[in-house]
């Protein structure tokens, strides 16, 4: 279906802020982001016949944007962080990293709502930095789901993968994002006393070591200051 040029222009202008935002987060570079958006618009215009109906415009043009980004990565031969989507099934018993779980160490529950306090303190810049640190194959699903509010079906269409892959990749991506956020928070002293960790005797598991009384009292005192 070809839509009139005016409708194409209106859609592009309406989505420009979103497209530029996603492009900046994919390329992590303003100049490359502008080039990516421009190339996407030019390609979209040339591929207008592949748009099935105007209501599908958003998913259609974001798919072109993502493919254009991947083509550029391939052209440059630089995809150190990229892993293509494959057939991914969640592993039995697989547990993702969770800030909530980290904060629900028994001694931290002395505080009223540590996880809510954490959310109150993290800033837009902290989230931006954590997102930028994620590998591309994780970053794109978080961007499409949490920033652009795409449904799982829309993400699957945009990335040309099964919905089950979107679901499992999103779970892993959120775990990875929370791990980065948690490390950042610890680095700048945002989170309360981090749980001390040690290896179990079998060397396989890594479980929290209960804090000493002195550590617990220090954590409580810090939270009150």
């Amino acid at each position, binding site marked *: 279906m070809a839509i009139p040029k005016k409708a194409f222009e209106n859609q592009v202008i309406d989505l420009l802020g979103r497209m530029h935002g996603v492009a900046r987060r994919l390329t992590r570079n303003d100049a490359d982001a502008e080039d990516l958006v421009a190339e996407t618009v030019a390609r979209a215009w040339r591929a207008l016949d592949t748009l099935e109906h105007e209501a599908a415009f958003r998913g259609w043009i974001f798919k072109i944007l993502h493919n254009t980004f991947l083509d550029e990565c391939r052209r440059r031969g630089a995809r150190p962080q990229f892993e293509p989507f494959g057939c991914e099934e969640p592993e039995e018993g697989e547990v993702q990293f969770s800030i909530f779980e980290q904060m629900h160490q028994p001694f931290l529950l002395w505080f009223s709502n540590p996880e809510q306090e954490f959310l109150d303190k993290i800033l837009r810049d902290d989230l931006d930095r954590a997102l930028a640190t994620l590998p591309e194959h994780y970053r794109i699903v978080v961007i499409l789901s*949490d*920033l652009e509010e795409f*449904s799982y079906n829309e993400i699957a269409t945009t990335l040309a993968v099964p919905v089950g892959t979107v679901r499992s990749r999103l779970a892993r991506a959120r775990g990875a994002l929370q791990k980065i956020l948690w490390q950042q928070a610890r680095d700048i002293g945002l989170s309360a006393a981090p749980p001390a960790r040690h290896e179990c005797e079998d060397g396989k598991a890594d479980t929290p070591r209960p804090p000493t009384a002195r550590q617990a009292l220090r954590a409580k005192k810090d939270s009150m200051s």
Partner: protein
Amino acid sequence: MTKHEIACKQALDQLFEFIDQELPEDRRDEMQHHLHTCKSCFSRFEFERRLKEKLGGLGKGEPSSGIRDRITKLLSRL
């Protein structure tokens, strides 16, 4: 357990799908019932929901005048 009751593990397994509004209606009802009756899962739900909300705030930005001008010119040449 009644037909509406699910265990915490099941609730946590489908928590993100619930927050993302991807659960079918019957499982959504089960989750809502569980979250009304389980303080621990509700706290986790609130945390994940607020974190998603904060991330959502990153997506709302105006394009710079530079990119707007560039794309406007490009569109006029198509």
